[in-house]
């Protein structure tokens, strides 16, 4: 598929900061009624002036560092002028010819091979407000505007056109999200956290830009659709027009927005109400405070806990999962912890569409460790552990109580031996049959033990015990 060329512009909301980019309105608006996190600055009232949020610059510098980009010593904010109802000033404060950082790369693993996705630039800008509609966009008589989001700090991360498939774009975005979450500047689960513009062309043909794809999954779908559309055109001997398209998420298709001739002229010029930002001191401040990044963590987990790379590489995919693992590994055998978290817990969470962040609240690592401890001590079967996990996630409650209620505590071995002896004594006919070579008779005897233990014995172990006794 390397006749396909893809470049991405990723808009990332630094949504874990406390306040907006140019005013002190709190950023935690996601649960709030519309237009409650606003002030004269983010409403663009005449005479109000922007003041740069230093924490936002710091966070942006952190990201640029983690993306291996070259941070510019002198960076300038510009006005991007265009009319849109969600833009209260009639311009967006963004960056143009002096962005925060140039270059950089993100490494992804593509079909078992490492590939560097080269970046063009990283710059800061403010989020516009948000339009919403009573009912659906097509039937609503008017648009409503919520300015809670207006002025939220965004980073725009622009890649070179170096990706060759929708899958590669998805891998890049996953990795980018992972890095941002490691830096604790970003929560990918919040609405509007990441929005993507994708540029795509089939080599030699017109470049098409797909605007404002608002979900991770959307990017792969939009690109796949677009490749199909463009290849169809080319096969029929038609050319691909250079244009901007919009991804219709509901219908899973892209639709034309405007042609090259209708491209907007943003009339960029330096924002006169802000002074250039000198980054040298901020870089010095941030250096050394960067948290452990995914690849470093992968190596450390292997080294420190003696777990295999197959586990380590999965654990680091979500920093909260890795943290969860480390908490559990303090209390039980790390290898056991890794395998249960990666092979079982992760799947159960995915099935429920839960994050590890949420799991952390419901199923504390100490409790999970306690459960694994029971398993280590043979006090609960593998099947029992899975059942406790499911119950815990679905219904909550103390794990001891769950085990009691469901009768999942494994029966001590001595007791099973006792029940086996009883079963042998009480069923001489079956013993005789077994000894004469009838395998089903063994199943019957195991069944008797299961009955006596109300299913708490492990069938395989029990069979083995009876066989030993009768040999």
């Amino acid at each position, binding site marked *: 598929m390397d006749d396909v060329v893809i470049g991405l512009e990723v808009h990332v909301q630094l949504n874990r900061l406390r306040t907006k980019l140019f005013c002190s309105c709190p950023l935690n608006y996601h649960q709030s009624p519309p237009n409650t996190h606003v002030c*004269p600055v983010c*409403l*663009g*009232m*005449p*005479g*109000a*002036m*922007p*003041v*740069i949020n230093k924490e936002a610059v710091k966070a942006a510098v952190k990201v640029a560092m983690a993306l291996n980009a070259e941070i510019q010593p002198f960076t300038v904010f510009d*006005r991007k*002028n265009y*009319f849109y*109802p969600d833009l*209260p*000033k*009639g*311009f967006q404060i963004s960056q143009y010819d002096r962005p925060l950082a140039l270059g950089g790369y993100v490494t992804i693993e593509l079909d078992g091979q490492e590939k560097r996705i080269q970046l063009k630039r990283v710059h800061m800008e403010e989020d516009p407000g948000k339009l919403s509609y009573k009912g659906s966009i097509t039937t609503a008589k*008017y*648009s409503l505007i919520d300015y809670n989001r207006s002025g939220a700090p965004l980073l725009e991360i622009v890649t070179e056109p170096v990706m060759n498939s929708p899958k590669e774009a998805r891998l890049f975005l996953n990795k980018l999200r992972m890095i941002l979450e490691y830096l604790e500047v970003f929560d990918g689960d919040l609405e509007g956290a990441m929005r993507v513009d994708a540029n795509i062309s089939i080599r030699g043909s017109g470049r098409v830009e797909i605007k404002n794809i608002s979900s991770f999954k959307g990017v792969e779908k939009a690109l796949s659709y677009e490749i199909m559309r463009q290849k169809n055109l080319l096969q029929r001997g038609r050319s691909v027009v250079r244009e901007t398209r919009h991804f219709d998420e509901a219908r899973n298709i892209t639709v034309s927005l405007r042609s090259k001739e209708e491209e907007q*002229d943003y*009339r*960029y*010029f330096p924002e*006169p*109400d*802000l*002074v250039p930002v000198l980054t040298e001191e901020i870089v010095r401040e941030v250096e050394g405070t960067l948290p452990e990044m995914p690849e470093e963590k992968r190596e450390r987990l292997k080294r420190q806990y003696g777990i295999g790379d197959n586990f380590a590489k999965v654990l680091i995919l979500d920093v909260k999962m890795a943290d969860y693992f480390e908490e559990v590994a303090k209390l039980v055998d790390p290898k056991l912890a890794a395998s249960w978290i990666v092979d079982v817990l992760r799947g159960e969470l995915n099935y429920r569409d839960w994050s590890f962040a949420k799991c952390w609240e419901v199923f504390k690592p100490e409790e999970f460790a306690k459960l694994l401890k029971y398993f280590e001590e043979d006090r609960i079967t593998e099947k029992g552990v899975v059942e406790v996990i499911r119950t815990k996630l679905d219904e909550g409650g103390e794990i001891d109580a769950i085990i009691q209620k469901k009768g999942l505590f494994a029966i001590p071995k001595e007791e099973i031996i006792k029940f086996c002896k009883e079963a042998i004594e009480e069923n001489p006919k079956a013993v005789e049959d077994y000894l004469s070579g009838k395998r089903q008779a063994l199943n019957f005897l195991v069944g008797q033990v299961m009955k006596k233990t109300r299913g708490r014995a492990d069938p395989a172990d029990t069979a083995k015990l009876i066989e030993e006794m009768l040999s």
Partner: protein
Amino acid sequence: MRIAEWKEKVESQGCYDAVSEMLERIEKSRLNAYITVCKDEALKMAEKYDRGELKGRLAGIPVAVKDNISTKGILTTCASKMLSNYRPVFDAHVVEKLKQEGAIIIGKANMDEFAMGTTTETSYFGVVRNPHDEARVAGGSSGGSGAVIAADEAVLSLGSDTGGSIRCPASFCGVYGLKPTYGLVSRYGLIPYANSLEQIGPMADSIEDLALLLEVIAGKDTRDSTNAGREFRFEPEDRKLRVGIIAEMGGNDDVMKRFNEAVEVIREKHEVGEVSMPSFKYALAAYYIIAMSEASSNLARYDGVRYGFALEKLDSWRRYFSKVRAEGFGDEVKRRIMLGSYALSAGYYGKYYLKAQKVRTLVIRDFKKAFEEYDVLISPTMPALPFKIGELADPLTMYKADVNTVPVNLAGLPALSVPVGMVKGLPVGLQVIGNYFSENTLLNFGKWVGERFGEGD
């Protein structure tokens, strides 16, 4: 009227009576210097003063505020139909300062629409007449702020100066006006026309009064990122200065006659020379390109949706806001938005905006060189006497009237207009330009010059 005179009046008849008298004068006035008169609020404050409850360095003193400076709950129209019903939800930094010092805000002064003009003729609320000759303009864009001082319709006033908008009306009305160093006074709450050029500044009938108002409004404000965080204190200074006459700045015969007389007076004490500023021939063009570019962007927010002028009939957003802007803005504002948008557009940016910024650098360089030799630079503030109303029908002629004032804004320097007497019954102003943050030197020099010509009228 000077503060000292006002205080005498208050002493003898009480603040309430003195303010009432002033309000009556404003009501009867034909000057049209105010857009909004804060009658009830002013009288309430005067009563408060009389009860001894109003404290501060400006306690009980009526101050007019230009109508592009935000006053919480009080109409702030920018002399535009677009904002004719707009009441800000916050006070500008300078208004907070006035209130802290006990000033009585007596009204909002008339001006050119969005400060775009040199004669206050672009005001949606009509022209401000010159107190010395009602057939003539009071200057602009802070025409109201200048006229109220000359006509005793306020004791002090605030104007804003983007390309001469304080100095021009000061000159035309025969009062003192100062455009401070860029960054000395916070612009927070000043409704922007051209952010990189403008400053709020004081207007008054004497240097002492001007200085006091500057002391109050100057200082640190973290809400304006371009604020220098510096205080101002007026201290007497009596030294012989090196005074440079700017060769490129002149005026017509009437103006030059008066200017040359002023120079002769200055020579009595100071050392006078002439200095040439080669970059100035491009300054006017550069100024207008930068100002209009910034304006085109600043004024994009007025769409009649959240505040300001609105239409009854709703329509699609795009059509609605186009109509609002077509009806809400006057011709001069539209002209500047169009020219500014053009100068910033792709393919023209380098030819206009960027080139203008380069001229700006050259202007700064010329000034810097001049200040190596001179302490202050002088010129006529305006190249002509106050224009007759309607005289400057052609926009380009109006732009050219700013030729002596705009280089100062390009460089961000402080400049003062000092009244130096009358020609044909009309005032003439002397412009005194100083180095960055040299306001104290400027004001002391201005005081010395002013005293030699008698004050204002």
